[in-house]
């Protein structure tokens, strides 16, 4: 049974609102109904769930939502994704890149990193999450293995933040085109410059914006390089 456009937009609205208002049941039902119809689930994910998460990100930036709301929304989002993703027809989604993300050695705080990771997930990035307390050289290893566009480093403590410039140096030496984003409580714009990173972000949706920008600029560099060849 195919979905007519009225039904489609109703379900999309349900998915979106369900995420924004953490209505797990709404999301589950709408996602299931979509899957049962046999339609490709691509739109349901991106125009429904992800649209909702983008709104959550906006509310978070505006400080209307806080960590608990963010995590509750994420729960609803993942409920929907679990149902919809297996039925999605793969396609090229434009500017989406590969990200290696983790909390640096000595640091075990990862709530912030998990939120950023989730935003990448929903935006369709290929995410390699190394977890927390990650040995510095493991970031380099994974970057080389996956040839990721971006490496994201997180630290909550000033003591562990000091490991970041070492990772940045290692990666930039092997792969100067890789973009590096750093984040966490002690990170400021000045630190970004001092450590030689490419960007920081004050919250998750900001991180996503920055990441998309970085990927776009990387692709342009590559295009230029290809054109020359």
């Amino acid at each position, binding site marked *: 049974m195919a979905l007519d456009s009225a039904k489609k937009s109703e379900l999309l609205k349900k998915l979106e609102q369900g995420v924004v208002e953490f209505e797990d049941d709404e999301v589950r039902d709408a996602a299931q109904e979509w899957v049962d119809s046999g339609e490709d689930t691509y739109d349901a994910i991106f125009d429904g769930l992800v649209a909702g998460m983008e709104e959550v990100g906006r509310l978070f930036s*505006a400080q209307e939502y*806080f960590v608990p709301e963010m995590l509750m929304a994420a729960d609803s989002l993942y409920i929907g994704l679990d149902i919809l993703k297996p039925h999605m027809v793969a396609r090229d989604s434009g500017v989406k890149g590969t990200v290696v993300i983790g909390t640096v050695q000595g640091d075990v705080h990862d709530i912030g990193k998990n939120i950023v990771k989730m935003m990448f997930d929903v935006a369709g990035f290929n995410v390699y999450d190394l977890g927390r307390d990650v040995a510095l050289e493991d970031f380099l290893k994974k970057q080389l293995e996956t040839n990721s566009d971006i490496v994201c480093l997180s630290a909550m403590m*000033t003591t562990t933040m*000091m490991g970041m410039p070492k990772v940045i140096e290692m990666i930039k030496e092997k792969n100067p085109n890789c973009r590096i984003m750093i984040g966490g409580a002690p990170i*400021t714009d000045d630190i970004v410059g*001092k450590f030689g990173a490419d960007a920081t972000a004050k919250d998750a949706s900001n991180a996503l914006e920055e990441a998309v920008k970085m990927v776009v600029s990387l692709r342009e560099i590559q295009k230029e390089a290809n054109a020359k060849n």
Partner: protein
Amino acid sequence: MSEHTVIFQPSGRRGKIAKGANLLDAARSLGVEIESICGEKKTCGKCKVQVEEGFFEKYGVDSKVSNLSGWTKDEERMLSLAEKENKYRLSCLAHVQGDLLVFVPEESRGGKQVVRKKAGKLKHKPDPSLTIHYIEMKAPTLHDPEDDYLRVVAALKEQHGVAADRIDIHCLRVMAGALRQAQWKVTVFLLRGEIVRVAPGKVETYYGIAVDIGTTTVAAYLTDLKTGRAVATESKMNPQVIYGEDVMSRITYSMQNPGTGLEKMHNAIINTLNEMIGSLVEEHMITRDDILEMVMVCNTAMHHILLKLDPQYVGVAPFPTAMSKALDVRARDLGIGINISGSIHVLANEAGFVGADNCGVLIAEEPYNSEELMLIIDIGTNGELLLGSKKHGVLSCSVATGPALEGAQIKFGMRAAPGAIEKVEIDQENLEPRFKVIGKELWNIDAAEIEAKGICGSGIIDVVSEMFRAGIIDKGGRFSKHAPSERIRKDPQNGMPEYVLAYKKETSIGKDIVVTQGDVRAIQLAVGSIYAGAVIMMHEHGVEKVDKVVLAGAFGSHLNQFSCLLMGMFPDVPLDKILSVGNAAGDGARLCLVNKQKRAEADVMARKVRYLELTVYKEFERVFMKAMQFPHMEDQFPTVQHVLDEIPDWKKIAKEKEKA
């Protein structure tokens, strides 16, 4: 016009200052008070400040004295050469030209910090490690040529039944003269079998000093070892604040400045301790030589810096300490100015993040002897929690409360000093506040001059709790869009909502004092982390509730217990089961000074406490998240339920009004 970041320590106030402004004006605009008696007429020389040079990671500030306008003739006249070399400037004459970190020395500070580390009453009888014994001996003769040392040892044995088996070299060097001058009638000071002092005649009272080295403040108690009473108290800012406000940034400072960073911070604390010892003995008309033993408690990082141990490993997971066991060090090895034969006892650390200060709390409160299950919360720059009873044993954990509860990282936060708003009530109907500031008796609404400068820790807890009670913010900490008050407005710079606690006319800083959405968030994180720590420990013990909550810490005793409970800082208990015990860490230090059984107990109990590393608990994220809501996303708070039921729902009220 270009602006530069200027940070004032030890208050931690910081902000962007327009290029060319003088430091005195910069300080005022940030709510930092600097003495200026002459009113910028360049005559008093009181507004001295010191520029700290270096790159400070935490602020991203590269501070140097050349970021100020040039040295002036007036400063040449009023400051000493040594001061010039140590980068002192007069704040009315030095103009901002770049980023700066400026230290305001004690003597230049207007408005002294209020000492909130008063000594409590001890529950144990004195039985100190350091004992004194009056002995009389016969002078040696040709028939009795025994050496001086054995003569003293024998007299101690015969006259008091105490055993001495060694003597400190410095004491020995002066003993021969002392014995003869006093005609062989002396009082011997004995510390764990060692003779450390021989004083002429009969000494009746003697003293020791207990010290609590906090990240922010240091408190020292001159204690009568016969009665156990604190006879004088001294409190100072920890001078290390200029190198970083929290332990992590201090450890980073040490890592970033190998060879000099640790040394600088170590020397700073030793100097401060020596100054404090000086004032204590002077106040009590005794001398430094009269002090033979000190007991110190501090968190792990302060412990390492005090002993000049490399603190970097304590700063990263898995946070191992150099040594957990209690330690006895000669005062002279640390350069601490008491009797040259004197000794320093440093209490045991429990775990990487739970230091000797918590050990002090542990033995002062004795949860291991309690029939009731006690939750002890020691709130400082870090929060340390203990949960236990005789039956359950004791667990500890450390929670990153952040400095918000001490008034830092709060837009108008400040330390507890005159002018700080410390108590707040908000009317549930008209949403008007009334508040009290430190140093004034009356509520603001009854006083002619209020001169509020900022909000201290207990004030910020009160105001956020009251905003919740009045429906200005909701359970999730979000500002209500419907609460009818002019005091709720938007910050024109970032569009975030804020609540005006004090209008400009009630403040001495020339602007309104507000509570921002960001402030509420910081408090949610702090309160949530404490509750989450408690919950994980309760899971570990397999219990559903606690019987009693003890709030310790300098600041704990000034908290409004009801406000804390309404925000859900800890699990629900009846209000009469919430106790404030003041500086329990300092009390524990004093106990160890005056009672040797307690000292032995401390070392044993510190080993028995089981430390939980919260971040390894998978459920921590969820538990923490739920605890961030006021009072909690799910858990019940019967004690304050009637208050929760009365919170006005402004959205509903607005809708009803519309209908009508």
